């Protein structure tokens, strides 16, 4: 479903990603962990070309994103993204946030888009907030709307960029619960996270990134209980 080949990203003279080879199968939930600056967010953002890779290839569902002939807007419809700071559209209600792209990009009729939007808000437990503006919602509610917004394009892959990092602790659970539901339904997910509990419980595979490379990967069991690499052990001991 997702494949990267020798993915390199430089910011000026700084090498952020040093050749990442990675494969995520359909229905798989992969969590990426690592210290800040390890390149995990940059890697995720390369998967829908919010960052343009310096070299290497990214394939989503068989389409090579880095091929200049590819219509990136089409591919992005298949990859939903959830951001650390939610990035909801503040001038639109929760429902309008969810229906904007289906209306404008997929050209759904207002009625169809509304139905889809309401169903998704119900799915994330926010039916009663359809007409609330983002500023009237808590962080956890905003992030759930953001997930519904991404799902409205019916993506094949969901990319999560530290979805709970800017939430108050008591709101982390409600967002993780929605993500667990998604995982259970078989959604392919790539999740950059500091929530080791989530990674342990939900992930099929955990990647440990260090200085722009995948230093270690394995099942949550392998990574958390018996990490092979000294650096992985050091990182885990610091945050667990």
């Amino acid at each position, binding site marked *: 479903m997702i494949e990267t080949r020798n993915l390199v990203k430089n910011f000026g003279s700084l090498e952020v990603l040093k050749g990442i080879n990675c494969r995520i199968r359909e229905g798989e939930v992969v969590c990426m962990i690592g210290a800040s600056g390890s390149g995990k967010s940059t890697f995720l953002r390369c998967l*829908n070309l*919010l960052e343009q890779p310096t070299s290497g290839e990214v394939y989503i569902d068989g389409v090579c994103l880095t091929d200049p002939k590819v219509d990136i*807007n*089409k591919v*992005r*419809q298949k*990859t*939903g*993204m959830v*951001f650390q*700071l939610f*990035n*909801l*559209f*503040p*001038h639109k209600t929760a429902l309008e946030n969810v229906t*904007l*792209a289906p209306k*404008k*990009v997929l050209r759904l009729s207002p009625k169809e888009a509304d139905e889809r939007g309401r169903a998704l808000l119900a799915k994330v437990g926010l039916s009663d907030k359809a007409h609330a503006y983002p500023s009237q919602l808590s962080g956890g509610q905003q992030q759930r709307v*953001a997930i519904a*917004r*991404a799902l409205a*394009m019916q993506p094949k892959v969901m990319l999560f960029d530290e979805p709970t990092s800017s939430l108050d602790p008591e709101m982390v659970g409600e967002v993780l619960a929605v993500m667990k539901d998604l995982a259970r339904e078989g959604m392919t997910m790539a999740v950059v996270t500091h929530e080791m509990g989530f990674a342990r419980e939900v992930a099929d595979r955990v990647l440990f990134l260090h200085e722009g490379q995948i230093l270690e990967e394995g099942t949550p069991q392998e990574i958390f209980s018996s990490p092979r690499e000294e650096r992985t052990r050091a990182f885990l001991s610091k945050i667990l």
Partner: protein
Amino acid sequence: MDIAIQILPTLLLGAEVTLRLTVISVSIGCVIGLFMGLARLSKSRILRAVGTAYVDFFRGTPLLVQALVIYFGIPQLINDFQTWLAVTYDIPRFQTFRFDIWAAAILVCSLNSGAYIAEIFRAGVQSIERGQMEAARSLGMTHVQAMRYVILPQAFKRVIPPLGNEFILMLKDTSILSAIGFVELTRRAQLINADLVAPFPIYITAALIYLAMTLTFSRLVDWLERRLKTE
């Protein structure tokens, strides 16, 4: 005081011209400013250069000189060109070109305010968090769709107060057009003074009319700003 009351109706006619010119010019300036502001943010180097040259020229030269160039300079250029065509290619001359003074006034003020408004729009768009564009693009919207449905509606809200200020500045600056003989409020006052020779009551009345207009608008802008904040 008697003079002030006597001339007030005539001055108010001038004020109406001033107000009308300002409203028309700032409206056209908004359209120019939107496109030029977006041009300055464009990926294309040519568009950026065009936007920058435009803004630099109209912000970097005095309105009075711009008015002189457009009202007197451009017609000369056109007429000289006609003469050259007539002499070189034997093409018959049209009528001698002269600017309608309203057209010249609107052109000068629109182009001038367009440059300031371009900067207002540019700053407004740049003030929208980067995450908004990223969220829109991540949903598959094109750059144009993201601008139109996500960035610009938010930017418009933020630029209302500076646009109000630009309106007030333009309202005062239109007095410069009295120098090319455009009969707005200031020119009216000068004409009355040529007749009655009572500069103090005449000019202070004109000043108070300007003040009444600018105060009304700045209160309106304040009110709008407060309303937008509470939303």
